[in-house]
């Protein structure tokens, strides 16, 4: 449903987005993960037709965005980061204005707007949008992104600045939209948030995709060159291990934490058994995606 081919954007000779190639299937909730300034918003801007790519192509439902932007926009909804509305108009008036670009009749538009305002929890709000809180603006932003009942919805850091209740509500809405078969492209710099709603993710850093796939795929890819951490414990005091491949070891009474280049559990087991020690624990400590993500993308913050 969404496809990018070597998408590149250069500003003053600096590549903000560098050869980004992604593929998101129909009905998928895709998490686009990366720190601030990594190129997430620029990438989304190119896909939704706001920013002209320096190189590369992007397609939505096989429609090339730069060649047929209107066709692509008709099936796309976008909730940008830092959304703003016409402050002298009410929520309904703002939505009515945007609905006119889709050739909807007044009655169609009014019906759709009523449904959407109820869906996002803004039904009956008559005040001008200039007085809306951040949460209300995000809700109205989602409503405007859905005004044309799009097949694909882009959300750029939608939960930024929301209170915990707002975050949960937004998460539920994303899940609900996904259940209706919508394809959702959801960007964030918070891994835990993405993990909760997305099965597939792409990680961008300094304009480049450094890993993509399922969360497990991404974890493996990110820790590809990392050491294996092994926890070992025996009954009694653990001896100093001589197993080849050990890079670092720390001993604490009956247990030890071993860092090795590869999984050397068999060697450790042989050595300890050969010396007559009874092994009570021997396992690889799996690093969470969060740990790997923080270390890879944020440099171990």
């Amino acid at each position, binding site marked *: 449903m969404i496809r990018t081919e070597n998408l590149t954007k250069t500003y003053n000779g600096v590549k903000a987005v560098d050869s980004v190639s992604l593929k998101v299937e129909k009905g998928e909730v895709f998490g686009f993960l990366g720190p601030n300034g990594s190129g997430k918003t620029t990438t989304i801007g190119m896909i939704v*037709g706001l920013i002209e790519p320096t190189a590369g192509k992007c397609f939505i439902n096989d429609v090339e965005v730069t060649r047929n932007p209107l066709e692509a926009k008709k099936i796309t909804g976008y909730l940008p980061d830092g959304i703003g509305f016409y402050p002298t108009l009410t929520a309904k008036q703002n939505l009515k204005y945007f609905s006119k670009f*889709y050739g909807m009749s007044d009655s169609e538009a009014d019906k759709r707007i009523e449904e959407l305002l109820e869906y996002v929890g803004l039904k009956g709000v008559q005040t001008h949008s200039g007085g809306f809180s951040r949460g209300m603006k995000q809700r109205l932003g989602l409503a405007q992104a859905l005004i044309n009942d799009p097949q694909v919805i882009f959300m750029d850091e939608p939960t930024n600045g929301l209170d915990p209740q707002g975050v949960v509500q937004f998460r539920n809405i994303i899940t609900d939209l996904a259940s209706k078969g919508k394809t959702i492209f959801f960007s964030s710099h918070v891994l835990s948030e993405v993990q909760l709603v997305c099965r597939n993710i792409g990680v961008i850093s300094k304009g480049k995709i450094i890993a993509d796939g399922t969360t497990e795929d991404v974890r493996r890819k990110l820790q590809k060159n990392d050491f294996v951490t092994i926890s070992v414990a025996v009954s009694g005091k653990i001896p100093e291990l001589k197993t080849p491949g050990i890079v670092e070891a720390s001993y604490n009474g009956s247990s030890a934490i071993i860092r090795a280049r590869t999984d050397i559990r068999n060697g450790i087991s042989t050595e300890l058994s050969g010396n007559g020690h009874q092994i009570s624990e021997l396992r690889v400590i799996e690093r969470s995606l969060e740990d790997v993500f923080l270390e890879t993308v944020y440099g171990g913050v």
Partner: protein
Amino acid sequence: MTIKNVRPEFIVAVKEFKDYLNSKRFMVIFGVLALLTIIGAITGYISYSDSLTTYNSQLSSTNSTMNFVRGPGIVSMPSVLNIFSSYGTYIASVGAFLAICMGFDMITREKEEGTLKLLLTHPVFRDSVINGKLLGAGSMLVMVLASTFLATIAVMMFFGVVPAVDDLTRIVAFFGATLLFMFTFLAISVTASTISGNSSMAVLIAIFVLIIGAVVPDISTTVSEAIMGSEPSMMIPSTSTSTSTDNSASSFDSSTTMTVVAVSSAQSDQGGPDFRGNGTRMTINPEYTSYWSTRNAIQNTLNIISPTYNYQMISQVINEKLSSPRTSSTNQGFFIRSADQTVSLWTSLSSVWINILALLVMIIVGFGIAYVRFIRVDVR
């Protein structure tokens, strides 16, 4: 009512038009302009009425003495367009300010509020957005001007002044000139809005251009003087025994009925052959004439960049039914109009074609820059 198949330009234009109606800033300035229009129309009528009384009394006294000569000091028939003279002055300041207020945040406001990003994610081309915005602002300007012109005409009618067909034609031409002038400042402010990062900078740029335009006519004299240096002496001893020096500027054929309306200081000193006290025959120095011709050309070229100057020249020839503006270099400051002569609107406008062209160029260049800039800018 359905709204299917409405062109995006019109959707944006209607929104823009409504925004102006809901804008307190716009309504305040429009209110001031409307008030000044009424005041200007009333004071214009009083001035016209006085001129008419003076004209009638001088006409009757002239008829009783020599009914074939009307020389300097005898006024011509005042035009009903004089009623618009104060309006022209007001529109040159408040009107320009209104046009700037309408355009300076046309694009920057949308950027600052984040609505431009939102708008452009919907199926609308950028050129439709800017065209719609300009259409909305232009329509509002036409409405503002039309309402003030109609108000002035209503005041005229109220006092029993009914414009003739020629007057009406000139009123329409004056309307066009005023529209051109206000569109110039709209173009300047919209350009400022597209090239600036925020509304504050945009309004500063637009006001800077407004001020430059207002002071250029004042400083152009100094600049042209600085470029040309001091003037050569006007009179030199004549080397010719002939008395055929061109003295058309200062001599009047008694068989021609003339009204001298204005004489520039430069030209008024120019005379025919002169005789100094020592008996030497004097004539006008050609270098002196050439000096002033070049200096006036420089001055007028500088003045051309001032929208206000151009507007004043155009409105002057239209409203005063002149065959050329009083300060134009084409007649080197010497302006004569026959009291009985009817100057056609075409003749009036032909004499200020360069000023009309200057305003048109400013509008086209201004909107062109705004258009290209808006189409190419990345919305982030």
